[in-house]
């Protein structure tokens, strides 16, 4: 009798737990379902989707991850990463002009863009300190404003005030940079092509890595669960290794290992910084600026630092993005970067006040899956690929709008509750 009661209790506890998980991850689950439906509707092959997806994850994750630190510091979603992207593009234009090839060119781009991004990040941070409470709209408008300056420099000042003679990059009139710059003579694939492995081998390595991790955990804690998990991973890893020896689509998909390692390093960096003093300050300021200030933290400086880090990371992210794309759209490549990265992060379940690496990566995967399959799904459903394309644009704006709205709503609700008390 009592036994059944306990089991019932356990059951309802489980149900409550599941309910909570479902509720907390509502957005992500919604998008998982949406992605599955769209994949089925699109009828595209797994090879095509996976191939595109791997490329897009490598291309975009870094940018999405660069958003995390300002969120921790309580500054919301940093729409100003566009400014970092502009710094990167300025560096790329210089390197394309000097025609420095391969990884050397890429490193030079990093070298050039970093100080520029630090300077621009500093300015952005100063500005956002003047617009506390409205950081997101201010960073967005500042992005637009910086775009104007960027156009002024590269469309009018190049060739008139800044001397530059290069028939490949500069417009035929001698004033202004061309609309598109082909990077195949400079940094195209410079990072991606460093190390490349088939997806099957990559997955096998990842599985073996996890196996070692859980085995180590087992040795330390002596929990049976860990041994079991590591066993699962060794089987999975073995399967992938076997697949490598046969004709299978997983072998035809190449993974840019160097790029992925950089992304992984950034994940570790984000985690690492949270454990340092700087990171603790970010958290303190993020939770309550006033209390942080009273307890002796220089709030303004901490906020500026958060934005500088984010801007520099965004610049590197844009470099990774463009070396994969291979052509620089001088006046367009940076415009949507912020929007797409923010939408990705939010789809992963992040909010204006809470974001982590896992959400960034999951969000990137879901967002880009949707991006890949939407046009075909739209075509098969409505007979018009355009609808799918507009739908994905709508999702970008919609998810940002809804999540900002929900956040503000929650704030107001809590404030009202506090006032009533």
């Amino acid at each position, binding site marked *: 009798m009592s036994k059944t009661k306990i089991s019932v209790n356990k059951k309802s506890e489980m149900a409550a737990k599941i309910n909570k998980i479902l509720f907390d991850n509502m957005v992500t689950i919604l998008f998982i379902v949406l992605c599955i439906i769209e994949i089925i509707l699109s009828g595209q092959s797994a090879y095509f989707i996976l191939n595109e997806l791997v490329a897009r994850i490598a291309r975009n994750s870094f940018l999405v991850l660069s958003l995390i630190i300002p969120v921790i510091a309580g500054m919301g979603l940093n729409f100003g990463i566009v400014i970092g992207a502009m710094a990167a593009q300025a560096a790329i234009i210089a390197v394309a002009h000097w025609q420095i090839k391969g990884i050397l060119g890429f490193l030079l781009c990093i070298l050039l863009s970093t100080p520029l991004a630090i300077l621009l990040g500093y300015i952005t941070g100063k500005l956002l300190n003047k617009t506390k409470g409205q950081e997101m709209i201010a960073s967005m*408008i*500042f992005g637009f*404003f910086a775009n104007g300056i960027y156009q*002024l420099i590269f469309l009018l000042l190049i060739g008139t005030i800044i001397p530059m003679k290069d028939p490949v990059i500069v417009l035929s009139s001698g*004033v202004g940079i061309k609309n598109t710059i082909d990077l195949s003579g400079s940094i195209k694939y410079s990072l991606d092509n460093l190390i490349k492995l088939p997806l099957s081998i990559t997955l096998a390595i990842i599985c073996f890595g996890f196996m070692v991790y859980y085995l180590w955990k087992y040795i330390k804690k002596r929990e049976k669960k860990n041994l079991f998990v590591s066993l699962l991973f060794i089987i999975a890893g073995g399967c992938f290794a076997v697949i490598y020896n046969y004709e299978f689509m997983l072998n035809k998909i190449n993974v840019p290992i160097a790029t992925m390692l950089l992304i992984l390093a950034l994940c570790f960096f984000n985690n690492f910084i949270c454990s340092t003093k700087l990171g603790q300050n970010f958290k303190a300021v993020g939770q309550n600026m006033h209390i942080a200030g009273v307890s002796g933290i220089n709030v303004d400086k901490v906020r500026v630092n958060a934005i500088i880090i984010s801007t520099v990371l965004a610049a590197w992210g844009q470099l990774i993005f463009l070396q994969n794309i291979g052509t620089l759209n001088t006046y367009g490549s940076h415009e949507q970067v912020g929007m797409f990265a923010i939408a990705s992060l939010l789809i992963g379940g992040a909010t204006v006040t809470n974001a982590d690496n896992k959400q960034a990566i999951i969000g990137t995967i879901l967002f880009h899956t949707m991006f890949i399959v939407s046009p075909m799904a739209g075509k098969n459903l409505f007979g018009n690929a355009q609808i799918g394309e507009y739908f994905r644009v709508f999702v970008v704006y*919609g998810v940002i709008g809804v999540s900002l709205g929900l956040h503000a709503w929650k704030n107001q609700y809590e404030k009202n509750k506090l006032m009533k008390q």
Partner: protein
Amino acid sequence: MKKFNKLLNRLGIARIIIILFFIALCILAVVIKLPISMLLSETIMRTGMYGILVLAMVPGIISGTGLNFGIPIGIICGLVGGLYSIEFNLNGFTGFFTAVAISIPLAAAIGYGYGLLINKVKGSEMMVGTYMGFSAVSLMCIGWLLIPFNSPAIKWPIGKGVRVTISLSERYAKVLNNFMNFKIGEVEIPTGLILFLFINCLFMWIFLRSKSGVTMKAAGDNPKFAEASGINVDKCRLRGIILSTVLGAVGIIVYAQSYGFYQLYQSPMMMGFPAVASILIGGASTNDAKISHVLVGTFLFQGLLVMALPITNEIVKEGDLSEIVRIIVSNGIILYALTKAGGGEECE
């Protein structure tokens, strides 16, 4: 000197730069012998064209919801009204006023919904508004593909959906502009257009002095005080947003009749920004606006844009400075207003 300093303070650094830039452009225009009369008539025409969209900012600011970046929502309502007037095959003033008549109730209804939302997100109205505007525009992109229209002027000849731009040249393009227009010397005055703007401004002026308008202003100035003295702040804000949305809808029809085209799909997306910038240049802030700010701001901003293009063409042969000036000036002034609104203090 004191008076001068006071004036400088009131104008603010951003506005001073813009005014100086405007003056510099004027001098340059004279120096390189551009036809001043043509520039002036163009500026006047564009002031009338954009005026009502800028006027739409006033009720939003007064009612305390800040700069209404969600104006694309109103614009879409106006476009729907405009398309139905073409669908009914109407021309001239009948067509124009039918478009306005259809769009007003639509905009009021949608503005009501949008206002309810805005009341739920106090403190982040601008950010949420911007993204609600963007979402509405992109959702409507799907809408334009699916709404059934039959008029061949609207539909693509083959395939589904509505054309990207719809010409009004055979219907009611420039009906307001050409209504009783006359010339002073070389300068063309589009009487109807300017008159329509002035009538709208006058209505707004009267409204702001009516009981309803005064309570709205009180609610916007100090919501807590207003609430304590028995004003329903949420209702006032709702009224402000509805009015703003309706004016946005009327504004785009006026804009389109002067421009000669309805532009659909993605084009309404960024239309809120010049409107916001104009009223800020005129001297408004995020919580205070007057009718005079609308007129002065629109004239200054449009004047800048009109002059920038031919002047750059004289100096550098390639490149469009006008577009760059638009981006820098409009976003610069918005940024400036935001820093003044926050004022470096914590928004709790």
